[in-house]
């Protein structure tokens, strides 16, 4: 796999991250906040989160907004993500669908042993085709 020998030459863009950090620290250092309000000593934070998530009235000790719709959407998104992951991991070989899951990833392992310098001709149908763009 990569991140091999030339990783060091990529350090330069990292300075941008450092710069961002400096700027943020500078900004935060100058900022002042009032004292945190806290939840009160005996408030049941977990229960409050549960109520908020299912949007069940104002039963929680700590205030919050209703999140039922968001909750459901996240649920669906997770489901979609699973499906998407399965879909992406699938590939077709000789007309039959072979999923990465069914072979336990052995194929992947086999190929990774060949290393990245495997002859390009073996790439078969997956070889990227670079289309000449319209200039």
């Amino acid at each position, binding site marked *: 796999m990569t991140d091999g020998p030339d990783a060091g030459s*990529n350090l330069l*863009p990292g300075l*941008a*991250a450092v*710069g*961002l950090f400096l*700027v*943020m620290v*500078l*900004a935060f250092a*100058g*900022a002042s906040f009032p004292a945190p309000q806290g939840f009160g000593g005996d408030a049941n934070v977990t229960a409050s989160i549960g109520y908020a998530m299912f949007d069940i009235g104002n039963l929680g000790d700590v205030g919050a907004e209703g999140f039922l719709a968001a909750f459901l959407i996240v649920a669906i998104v997770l489901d979609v993500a699973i499906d998407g992951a399965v879909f992406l991991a699938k590939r077709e070989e000789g007309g039959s669908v072979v999923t990465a899951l069914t072979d336990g990833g052995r194929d992947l392992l086999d190929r990774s042993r060949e290393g990245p310098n495997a002859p390009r001709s073996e790439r078969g149908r997956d070889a990227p085709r670079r289309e000449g763009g319209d*200039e």
Partner: protein
Amino acid sequence: MAGAFDYTPAIVLLPFLSFLLALGVGRSMPKGGALAGIAATGGSLLLSVWAMLAVANGGTYNQTIYTWAAGTGNSFELTFGLLVDPLAAMMLVIVSLIAFLVHVFSLGYMNDEGETGLPRYYAGLGLFTASMLGFVVANNLLMAFMFFELVGLCSWLLIGFWFREEAPPSAAKKAFLVTRFGDYFFLVGVVAVFATFGTAAFAGEGSFPALAEAALAGEAATEINTFGFAPQTWFTVVGLLVLGGVVGKSAQFPLHTWLPDAMEGPTPVSALIHAATMVAAGVYLVARMYGFYALSPTALGIIAFVGGFTALFAATMGVVKREIKQVLAYSTISQYGYMMLALGAGGYIAATFHLMTHAFFKALLFLGAGSVIIAMHHNENMWDMGGLKERMPVTYWTFLAGSLALAGIFPFSGFWSKDEVLYEALAHGLGGTPLLLAAWAMGLLAVFFTGFYTFRMVFLTFHGEPRTDVARDPHGVGWNVKAPLTVLGVLAVVAGFVNMVPVAKLTGAHIEFLHDWLAHGLGGLTSEHYGELTGQFAGYETGYVGSELTTVLLSGALSLGLALAGAGLAYKLYNVPAPVEHTDRLGSVKTLLFNNYYQDEYQVWLADTAARNVARGADKFDQGVIDGVVNGISSVSLFSGSRVRRIQTGVVSNYAALLTLGLVALLLGIGLMGGWFL
């Protein structure tokens, strides 16, 4: 007698029907649609005669029959209507008669010669006749213009009939283009008439000549928009604009150049064009709206001068031509010059008279020439003819009658009408309009040339010894050629007797039938009214050499003498067994005449070379500058795009780095502005 006028639309529609029939089912009709055309024009002729009888009984007809565009009533209407008065009735008969005879003649000239495309030919003839008849009965200027243009289209179709050759399509194009150039001015004139008067009717209380007259007389100038000019000036301008169309169609100088080329068309078509339809249309238009021209001495003067000049100018060119039809073509130009001269000189009746007699004798001459051409196997060169007199007597005698009329020899029809034209010009010229005298002089001089070229043509064609084998044994012609020739031959002899002014003046007998004919009719459209108008507004007075009688006789004697002199010279030079070309004696003038005074050259240069160069320049400008700017703008954006896209490396890390840097810059900016960093 209202019955006759109810059928007036049919006069126009019958030939139109024959056009549709020939176009649609001409292939399967006998004689390629010729019989339908003959029937239709025959029907038109009968109806026209009926209408003329109705007019003779004092009836006139001026009716709007169709609203072309009504608008919403805030503005003027554009309409079609019929106007049948003595002038129109006379012209209807002439046009339908000649169209009828031309159709008959075409049986001999086209069908018997085995031409292809006959349905197209007869369709063209039918439409031509219909357009001209529609033009004749038009009761307003717009309708007249529309049919005027259709006449132009038909001339294009028929001149270019033999489209498989090079020359006819080119001649057709030239004819249409030159007349279109004239029609441009005409159209501006029509538009100006509408904008000025709000109507373009020829006759009636609200007609534009009547409104113009009222405006000039200072009586109730109701809403006449003269665009800031004095009414007199503006009317002259409008009149001259309309005259542009007349100059184009009637082949007056300088737009006469299309007419000799138009000889490329079939000869019967030439007869139709020259005698009764297209060329006649121009002069007829001036006569039709004479009440308007009579108001403007400038316009009249220009008409007269152009006419006189054209008469002389064309006659000189006719002197040297080799082809029989070319001679006739230049004679046509010249003769229409006479009519224009007459109109300009205030001789409304003279012009109409000459229009009529010319229609007969020129149709006769062309059909006679067509007969000769059939006989000569479509060779038109007169130097290849000779001695046809014995071999085709009917053609010879009728052609001779036509020639005598054309030359203006007593007592053939052309003498009477040409004499009256010249008399009017002389009389009004002596009456205090010296410009007319100059025009008169040119017209008079042209009489000599007319006599000369006419008889040169006759002698070269029919007299002497045959100069080629074909001329020795010409192709025979059938009844369908001889019959029209005979009818027209008789008319060419006798048509002049309807208006023998000198005889009337001499004997005091009341035989000026045409004067009487044109003197009645719709109010404001009579020759008497026109006489008043020219007197009142153009200041035309009649002056005499001695008395009226002496002037009449002097004028007649002068023109007859000159015509005889011309004919005599032709007799001396060409009525010999083996005539030779005398044109070389003219020296460099010969070249000038052969080249038609180089009129063609500059017009072709203007229409072709100059226009094409302008067009090419415009195209270069368009492609180079205008489109260049457009492409320049696009190449700027393309170029900058091709540079800017290089930051689009496709490497995620680079994008992320750019994002980060952007964020840092943004935060720094906002922070500094908002004083976050203290």
